[in-house]
């Protein structure tokens, strides 16, 4: 093998998906500003992927360059569009990446490309991803991500620490940091904790900050789950 000055590797990153429901320039800037204000640390500089599936009828009127500029002006980093056959050309023209269309999860309007019928071999290959189990405290500044599985933390999650999972999150010590379940978009994911003292709870991108928690739930055993895109926190 020749000695190459670089190496190509596949990697998975989490990005925020901006799903447009309708679009008018002024309204968009105003509401985006408000959203960022609620959680500047979560959103500023974070990569953004546009998804136009839910406003496909209106998409023709959107000037993508302006849309991107509006996001950049507020400190977001647009990196691409969810592909959508009708507008692929216009999307490509912006210079951003075209990402594969979203799955049917969340009731997207676009048609799924015909998938090859999975034979018995393909089914056998489907392996269970074991949960990630953490026994040590998750300290301030640490981030634990359970990819494609549940996360179980047997100890505490300190203030300033962050635990993320594509699946559910269980915390058996004090949960004082941030917990984000279903970061890949799984809206059925839940967070369970023994003592809820979190800074932020999020399921599939729908989050609540500590100041919005019901004070009665403080230090209680609770679960957090999505009910019609609204994050609910209930005692266990």
């Amino acid at each position, binding site marked *: 093998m020749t000695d190459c000055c670089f190496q190509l590797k596949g990697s998975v990153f989490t990005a925020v998906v901006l799903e447009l429901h309708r679009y008018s320039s002024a309204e968009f800037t105003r509401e985006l500003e408000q959203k960022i204000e609620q959680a500047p640390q979560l959103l500023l500089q974070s990569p953004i992927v546009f998804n136009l599936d839910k406003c496909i009828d209106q998409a023709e009127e959107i000037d993508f360059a302006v849309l991107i500029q509006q996001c950049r002006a507020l400190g977001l980093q647009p990196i691409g569009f969810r592909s959508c056959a009708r507008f692929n050309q216009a999307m490509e023209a912006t210079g951003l990446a075209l990402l594969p269309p979203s799955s049917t999860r969340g009731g997207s309007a676009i048609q799924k490309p015909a998938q090859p019928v999975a034979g018995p071999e393909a089914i056998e290959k489907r392996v269970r991803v074991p949960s990630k189990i953490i026994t040590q*405290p*998750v*300290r301030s*500044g640490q981030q634990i991500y359970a990819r494609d599985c549940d996360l179980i933390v047997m*100890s505490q999650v*300190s*203030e*300033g*620490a962050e635990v993320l999972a594509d699946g559910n999150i269980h915390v058996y010590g004090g949960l*004082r940091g941030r917990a984000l379940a279903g970061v890949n978009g799984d809206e059925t994911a839940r967070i369970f904790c023994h003592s809820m003292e979190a800074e932020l709870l999020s399921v599939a991108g729908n989050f609540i900050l500590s100041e919005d928690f019901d004070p009665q739930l403080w230090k209680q055993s609770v679960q957090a789950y999505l009910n019609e895109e609204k994050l609910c926190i209930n005692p266990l």
Partner: protein
Amino acid sequence: MAKIIVVTSGKGGVGKTTTSAAIGTGLALKGHKTAIIDFDVGLRNLDLIMGCERRVVYDFVNVINGDASLKQAMIKDKRTENLFILPASQTRDKDALTIEGVEKILDELSQEYEFIVCDSPAGIEKGALMALYFADEAIVVTNPEVSSVRDSDRILGILQSKSRRAEQGKEPVKEHLLLTRYNPERVIAGEMLSVEDVEDILAIPLLGIIPESEAVLKASNQGQPVILDNEAKAGQAYGDAVARLLGEDVAHRFLDVPKKGFFKRVMGGR
């Protein structure tokens, strides 16, 4: 083999160097041959607290660079038998420290000493990482206030992820909490976190509680480790901490508000 103990905190000004000097001196007083290394290259302080600043000829960086031998650079303490200090360089910065250089020095010291106390600089950058990388045990110095506690939590995370023991998958660094500048009166007044609060947040074993004391500042300015001041509560508390570090079972003291004597009560003095 020597036991390598890092004194660290994340936050500055909480008493790391005071603690390094006191714990190092305490170990030597108990008859263990001890070296204290100042890792705060560029902002050297340990020599002042130990009162040996006029005797610094060669320093840590000189030894790493091979300009001096370890024997030449180690300063023998004049007051305490078995105690040696390796001062930091004042003219260089933390980039002068290398993993290989530090490892070589620690290996050489390990042959001869029983304890090596590494006085970490504040922060979580190179100097602090170097100080904790080779540690077997860590004394996390924390003040009873929220920012100090959070920084200690951060440094605990780093100890468990970036130390050599963590990287090599060995038994984790043994952690000790040392709560300094503790003032029971202010805890009762709600101005300061209590021992229980801090233990609850950090969840590591408590090595000692050092009461806030004027003796500490006095000792620093005189270049005399506070542990040598038997009159001062802070000195006694450090003595207790050293005993616990060596495995002795000593009850915690100075947790309650001191009762004012008759004279003080009448005069309303403090």
